[in-house]
């Protein structure tokens, strides 16, 4: 579901030209209908397009050792982070363009049942790679577990409303190991990409995770994409063991398979026809 709001009719049109620090944040609501119910676990993605996360300057603008909890890098980030390395003579944590431009829209999903809006529980853990969350990303170490103290001496990225140690209330999802943050830090390969936002777990075996029907999506619209003709989307998807629905593999397998078969038959005929000639021609030699 596209909620960029470029069309005047879109409820989010009013938010089109938001900037980072607009207070209060612009909010909008989009209603939509699910034709079919989603039986198994549902994955909620946000998608951006025309956003070049794979630009070289962007990709390298990070400091992995800072993110790994290295205290010296925390206060002295890598040069690669320029121009997002320091702000007002204080080191930025997390530094770099990637972190600075972290996606910060908030999406909430409601089921509309007879005009009553029931919120759907969105699980925010388990969206990042396990290894990223547990090994690659670590909060700085020090005395105590008070993140505020640990990030002492650093400043927040310019575009962030809050510092990194206030990303989440839960301590195991705060700071550098915030999963939304980790997901964002894995730069996408192509300018049109999607990232996992939330999980919707199936509660019991009796009813589907999401029934067919009316839903509404509440958006806290913070993230400006209009300046670079970007689009924002929200995607709901189920997944099999092979991943999401991907027509490419199926089509490709069928195509290649049939070509193989066809050529195989052709070759067989040719072999049959010319093979005899060759063997007989070889004998006199």
């Amino acid at each position, binding site marked *: 579901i596209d909620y960029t709001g470029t069309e005047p009719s879109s409820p989010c049109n009013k938010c089109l030209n938001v900037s980072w620090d607009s207070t209060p944040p612009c909010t909008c609501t989009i209603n939509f209908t699910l034709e079919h119910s989603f039986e198994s676990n549902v994955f909620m993605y946000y998608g951006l397009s025309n956003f*070049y996360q794979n630009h070289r300057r962007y990709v390298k603008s990070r400091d992995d050792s800072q993110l790994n909890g290295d205290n010296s890098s925390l206060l002295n980030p890598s040069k690669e982070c320029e121009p*997002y390395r320091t702000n007002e003579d204080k080191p930025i944590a997390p530094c770099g363009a990637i972190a600075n431009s972290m996606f910060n829209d908030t999406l909430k999903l409601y089921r509309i049942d007879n005009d009553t809006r029931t919120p759907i529980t969105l699980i925010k853990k*388990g969206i990042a790679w396990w290894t990223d969350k547990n090994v690659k990303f670590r909060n700085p170490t020090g005395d105590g577990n008070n993140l505020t103290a640990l990030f002492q001496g650093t400043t927040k990225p310019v575009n962030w409303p809050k510092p990194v140690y206030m990303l989440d209330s839960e301590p195991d999802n705060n700071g550098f190991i915030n999963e939304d943050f980790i*997901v964002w830090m894995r730069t996408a*390969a192509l300018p*049109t990409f999607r*990232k996992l936002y939330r999980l919707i777990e199936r509660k019991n075996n009796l009813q589907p995770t999401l029934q067919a029907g009316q839903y509404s999506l509440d958006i806290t619209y913070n993230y400006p994409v209009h300046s670079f003709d970007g689009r924002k989307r929200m995607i709901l998807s189920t997944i099999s063991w092979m991943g999401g629905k991907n027509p490419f593999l199926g089509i490709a397998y069928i195509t*290649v398979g049939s070509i193989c078969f066809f050529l195989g038959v052709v070759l067989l005929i040719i072999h049959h026809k010319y093979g005899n000639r060759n063997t007989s*021609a070889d004998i006199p*030699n």
Partner: protein
Amino acid sequence: QGYEDWLRHKADNEVNGAPVYVVRSGGLVKTRSKNIRVGDIVRVAKDETFPVDLVLLSSDRVDGSCHVTTASLDGETNLKTHVAVPETAVLQSVANLDKLVAVIECQQPEADLYRFVGRITVSQQAEEIVRPLGPESLLLRGARLKNTKEIFGVAVYTGMETKMALNYKSKSQKRSAVEKSMNSFLIIYLIILLFEAILSTILKYAWQAEKKWDEPWYNEKTEHERNSSKILRFISDFLAFLVLYNFIIPISLYVTVEMQKFLGSFFIGWDLDLYHEETNQRAQVNTSDLNEELGQVEYVFTDKTGTLTENEMQFRECSINGIKYQEVNGKLTPEGFSEDSPDGNRHKEELFLKAVCLCHTVQINADQTDGADGPWHANGIASPLEYYASSPDEKALVEAASRVGVIFTGTSGDSMEVKSLGKPERYKLLHVLEFDPNRRRMSVIVESPSGEKLLFTKGAESSILPRSKSGEIDKTRIHVDEFALKGLRTLCVAYRRFTPEEYQEIGKRLHEARTALQQREERLADVFNFIERDLELLGATGVEDKLQEKVQETIEALRLAGIKVWVLTGDKHETAVSVSLSCGHFHRTMNILELVQHKSDSTCAEQLRQLAKRIKEDHVIQHGLVVDGTSLSLALREHEKLFMEVCKNCSAVLCCRMAPLQKAKVVRLLKTSPEKPITLAIGDGANDVSMIQEAHVGIGIMGKEGRQAVRNSDYAIARFKFLSKLLFVHGHFYYIRIATLVQYFFYKNVCFITPQFLYQFFCLFSQQTLYDSVYLTLYNICFTSLPVLIYSLFEQHVHPHVLQSKPVLYRDISKNAHLGFKPFLYWTTLGFFHAFVFFYGSYLLMGEDTSLLGNGQMFGNWTFGTLVFTVMVITVTMKMALETHFWTWINHFVTWGSIVFYFIFSLFYGGIIWPFLHTQDMYFVFVQLLSSGSAWFAIILIVVACLFLDVVKKVLYRHLQPTSTEKAQ
């Protein structure tokens, strides 16, 4: 290459460091040959080679003469007599020599072996004697002293100024045609690289014209970047693209090619088929750079003596008084009828043998006659006498005669001793009528023990038969023709009995002619003509210059393979032709054209034109061309084009009477002709060295004439027949191997870098790499290098026996067929095609922006790159596997090993947070990729899609237009 240079250096050191004795300050000083300076007096002992060019001062003989053999210089095995000037000849001891005060003046160093002009001024008791010095007193470096115990000589030319060294061409770096085409491919790739970089840079700026792409809010530039000048930025962007794409130039190709050549050259040495048991010699590789050139040869230039032939004359048959005899087990057996040979014939036989024994210039190794006479007498079977002769024919004849029972035991004073059937006889040598090429015969006049004066003449049948008066002339003529047909070298023998009056007249006329001051030669010839007439024909001999085994087959095979064979020899015309005939170089059916003995430019040109016309008129028969040295130099000077045209239309060319440098000149002529054919020169003596060095590929035969040729050759083999295996099997393999190696390298680098290029379209041309830098580096070094190296070492696309038995297959790879433009285009296109499939296959998979993981998580750009890379490594390795026809366990090991290694390495590389690395981009990327089922399916699918079309193409071509090589597989 360095290794080979080192070996060469070692061999050079051996020569330079050889010990020699130099007379210095009154004594004999042992020193190294490199320390000899001009003016030193050098002592050389028997059977030693001369370290420098020497002017002979004295020998152990009274007359100051010595014998040398110049076999390693010009290929002539006979002994040459050199004499010292009489003033110095008496100085036979070191002490005497030390007192010698003399000045030698001579010309500047010159390449001609047979010219030397100088003079020596000897100061003796305040009196100066000036003597001229000619080539007869110059001992050339490289020649070997024979029959003389020791000599003293003054060094006149040393080091690079010696005549032998002047005849060398400096060893230039030889480059193979493959290397040349490799370089031109590189240039094409360089152009592709520049094109891609320029295109990317331009597109980048086109894209960046708008600020929203150049610098969106999420990705701002640093102050520094913003402030740098536009031109500087443009250049740095261009350079960045160059760096990004530079892997398209396969730098590792050179390393791999060098390694392949170095390791591959061992196979030639290891080949047991090239091993010669009798001499215990293997083939030897001096320049591994040229391995593949062996598969490209179009012209073979071969020396005759010692290369085609064993350089050993052997007596085979003779015809005496009209009856043909064959030598069987040391006895002459008449052919046809046996036992009823009349006594008259017996007498003739004896006379014939005596004639053979007497009419020659053979000398006997002095050492052996002294002591070995007794024991030989007891044995009475084979002669242990060592004969030396200026003509190997004579040597063979004398040896044959001694086997049959008439033994020449030596000369003493002016008489010759012959043991005939055990009885020693003494003949007084009265006159020798020397051989000269115009008369084509030689004679001796002897006085027999019984006082009879006899003339024995031996010579070519064309000069003897017309002069014969009696004897079985017709029958002999028939026999001679038969011998010639068998490839034997024939000589006729005749004799004449003089009455005392006749002899006196002859003696008088001879003396007159010999002492005549004017026109001595003409008058001598007249006298000789007068003497050598009214001969009574005794018979004819057939001597075989034993051809090496399988020479004929080899030459025939070379011809079948489309290689033109030229024989370049220093021999005289007739000998050369007869050997050519016997070794199959010339066919009986061939129309033999001659271009010989032209003294002037115009006649030579005229003859050439006529030959060209004759060739045009007659297309049916094959033509053979015979050229001699002088005519050749005339032809080359003015009528090069015409000559080349004639040559090209002849299927066989024979050049005789060639000087060493002339041989090289002929090679160069062909080498630089418009078609630029690949030439191969093969020879065994020092006289072939310049030719060997001039040709693209030089092959030395490890023969009897020293190691000069071997040292300067690129390859050395023991026998001529090994050439066919060397070319058809090794050459073919090496060529196929290196050609595939080169093409494959370009292919795999195109595959490698094109996805990078394509990726730029998706990342705003920001020079973002698709692959991790470690993968970038290791791709050529680890992941894909070994299978192709092993392939290039072991590949045998056709069984070696098939290759050898079907020389025609050689034509399939001639003219650099596998490195032409078409195959190159094919491989490059294939590379691009595969790259597109890799990239867009992965793009379609990832670009559908669905999750590929079972838990809904997403992949990033590094995973995308790794997927492309994985597919690529597998495809490229499998492609090599498809090309391989000959699977050894090593091939299996490295092919599957490479893929397995890639997986293990990636797991390891992605499995650890590397403390020293700046970024941890690859952390667990590979594992995550492999944990996706779709990725697995995609990998298999893309690999199959890439290779399937290739397989189809191969099969189709095989069935629809198979090359003869493929048919033979």
